[in-house]
């Protein structure tokens, strides 16, 4: 219980700090934070799946679903409100996850990973072949208001940043609560021993299905926020490299805390920005070396640095 309060307090401090920093941040930094938090949301879903013993190489599917749903809501359904677009994106992704979960929840390990990858590539293929959704080019997305406030001028300029930090905060707090509930505690139990969970009276498949939906919704929120910030969606969001990046972030961060994926995504985005600037032709090399270093020296992810220090202090 005390860990739960400490996590919530830490997240609240981070929220206030990010909100207070808004007027000081240059535009590029604000954009970097928004994109990091959006990717962090997708990685947060992976954290839940990894705790359940599953690695999905297809979270891009829900990321793209969320982004396209937000775009379609704005362009075709005339929903111009950023908050509604994000909610719609998450709901659409959760719906897709609920449907695909009927099949995915039956598979484990490499079969689950490959099947999730296959589904995301099917969506990629569909998006590329659909002229109504812009085919390979995608289409532009322009949110107009946030809770009735215009995004074009005044405090509205910080609107999407505000949506990003409050979505990340809300999702992290709710997921933290879920992970500490009796239902959430079944995730590591399922990872360790499915047979025993069944023999204790719970349906493993239903819990896995639920966690797939939650992870899908989180990726959907992230995709919708990305669509708002970039102002554009394209099929690359469903491509396997996007999914691979979420796995990259999740492994880099570790599964110790719900704050870890956001910190990991921020580190990754900053690292990429600097690598891009200083080694434009070999930035992938820098990223790969960073990943290798984390796996070798911090096998439990970046967040384990905090844990070790805490353990050493007590």
């Amino acid at each position: 219980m005390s860990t739960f309060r400490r996590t919530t307090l830490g997240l609240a401090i981070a929220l206030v700090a990010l909100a207070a920093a808004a007027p000081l941040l240059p535009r590029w930094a604000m954009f970097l934070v928004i994109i990091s938090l959006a990717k962090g949301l997708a990685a947060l879903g992976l954290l839940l799946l990894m705790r359940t013993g599953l690695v999905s190489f297809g979270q891009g599917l829900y990321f793209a679903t969320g982004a396209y749903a937000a775009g379609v809501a704005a362009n075709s359904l005339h929903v111009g409100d950023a908050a509604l677009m994000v909610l719609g994106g998450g709901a659409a992704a959760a719906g897709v996850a609920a449907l695909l979960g009927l099949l995915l929840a039956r598979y484990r390990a490499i079969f689950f990973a490959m099947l999730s990858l296959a589904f995301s590539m099917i969506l990629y293929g569909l998006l590329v072949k659909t002229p109504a959704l812009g085919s390979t080019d995608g289409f532009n997305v322009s949110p107009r208001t946030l809770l009735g406030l215009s995004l074009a001028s005044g405090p509205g300029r910080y609107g999407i940043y505000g949506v990003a930090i409050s979505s990340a905060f809300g999702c992290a707090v709710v997921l933290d609560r879920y992970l500490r509930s009796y239902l959430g505690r079944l995730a590591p139990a399922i990872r360790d021993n499915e047979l025993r969970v069944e023999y204790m009276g719970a349906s493993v498949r239903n819990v896995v299905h639920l966690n797939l939906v939650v992870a899908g919704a989180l990726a959907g929120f992230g995709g919708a926020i990305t669509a708002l910030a970039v102002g554009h969606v394209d099929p690359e969001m469903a491509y396997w490299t996007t999914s691979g990046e979420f796995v990259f972030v999740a492994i880099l961060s570790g599964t110790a805390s719900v704050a870890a994926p956001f910190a990991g995504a921020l580190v990754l985005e900053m690292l990429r920005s600097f690598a891009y600037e200083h080694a434009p032709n070999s930035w992938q090399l820098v990223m790969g070396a960073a990943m290798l270093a984390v796996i070798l020296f911090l096998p439990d992810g970046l967040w384990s640095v905090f844990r070790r220090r805490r353990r050493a202090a007590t």
Partner: protein
Amino acid sequence: MSAILEAAGLTKTFGAVTAAANISVSIEEDTVVGLIGGNGAGKTTFLNLVTGYLKPTSGSVRFLGRDITGMAPRRITRLGICRSFQIPQVFDSLTAFENLLVGLGIVFMGRSAFVGSHLGDATPEAAAEEMLARFRLGDYRDEPVSVLPEGVRKLLDIAMAMAVKPRILLLDEPTSGVSADEKFALMDLVLGAIRADKVTVLFVEHDMDIVRRYTQRILAFYDGKVIADGDPASVLANAEVRRLVVGEGGPGEAPC
């Protein structure tokens, strides 16, 4: 006394192998029954059939008069039949306390689904503490169970089965992997903890001294069939049982 568990004509074949052949057994409520037999006699198959892990080729299982043949293990668990495992099936990355909390949390969430099993006013946390105390696992409360000795893991495995508040508990070789001089202490502790709730017990065992001492009735299995059923003294004196199960037959006869 009424029958809590009835198997009628239970048969299970795997291709040409018959693991259970027409087993008909009735277990009375509030008794302790021992199940003996050599390797491959069908003891664990019987437990797997009763708990729904295997579906019988033919025959039926009734629990408190209700047909449970072919039900999924989780539904059978909720009705009140629980089991422990020969090799402890625990959650290795969790602590002993968290292991118990998984089961108690499931009971807490599914209060309406668990027939006759409830926590009363106790929270799952309080119930987990009580189970740790009852099975004398308090010293291991916050240890990850992957580092615990095998005997403690077996005890935890049984405690987890008890956490789900069963009406009948099936123990698969509770003393296997436990040293000879600890077996009686372990069985005293386990049966004391279980029988405090008047839970019916059926346990698979290889040690005849244990079976003789703790049971009111013995079922002897051989080659998928029940070859003897009765009070411990008469079953253990049965010539066929002595020859095929206990292994005290004439010279040259290989004990199975």
